[in-house]
């Protein structure tokens, strides 16, 4: 059926977004860039689960999606709590030439 095929195509496109987040996680010049890549990856995986649930018509993954988004936010906030303890002249915050 054509609608299901298009939803599968949307899933594949979202995997491209996950690849972008992982690329930024590998590449980013500062720690904050890596954290941004992690954030993008988390939210996109949540979106993939939602689109896949819409493809198969199940309602059993909503709790997983809620817990996963809460875990992603908690991960980000706890990393920030760690980063606030570092001194400002730490070399992790030097962006180099910007890219």
């Amino acid at each position: 059926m054509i609608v299901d095929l298009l939803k599968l195509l949307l899933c594949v496109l979202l995997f491209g977004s996950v690849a972008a987040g992982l690329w930024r996680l590998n590449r980013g010049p500062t720690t904050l860039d890596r954290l941004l890549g992690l954030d993008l990856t988390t939210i996109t995986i949540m979106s993939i689960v939602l689109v896949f649930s819409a493809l198969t018509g199940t309602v059993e993954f909503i709790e997983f999606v809620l817990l996963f988004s809460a875990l992603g936010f908690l991960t980000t906030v706890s990393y920030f709590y760690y980063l606030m303890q570092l001194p400002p002249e730490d070399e992790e915050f030097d962006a180099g030439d910007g890219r």
Partner: protein
Amino acid sequence: MSMVREIAGLVVLAGGVFFVIVAAVGQIRLPDVFCRSHAIGKAMTLGVMLIVLGYGLSVPDAPWLKLILLLIFQLMTIPVASHLFCLIAYRKGVRRYRAKAVWEEGEWERIGNAPQE
């Protein structure tokens, strides 16, 4: 009627996926932590909200209470995380991206990250 609901759900899901991919492209292309967290905080919020709405439209017996809870949670947490990125980057003195344009060969050419004054 079921067909109409399926088509509407598919269209809203496609819009959400479009905005998520816009956020990913911004994550790759933009030059700075501040710009990248801007891309996350706006495009990603809209994309995720549209995806949740599209899921609720395309599943017949969708749990709308949990979906509304998820919508409110996303609407609260993604901009807060994006704001925290900018706050920490500002407090730690991450160098901002400053584009400088120089006149060369008859046209303006932009050079990234000019030195801070």
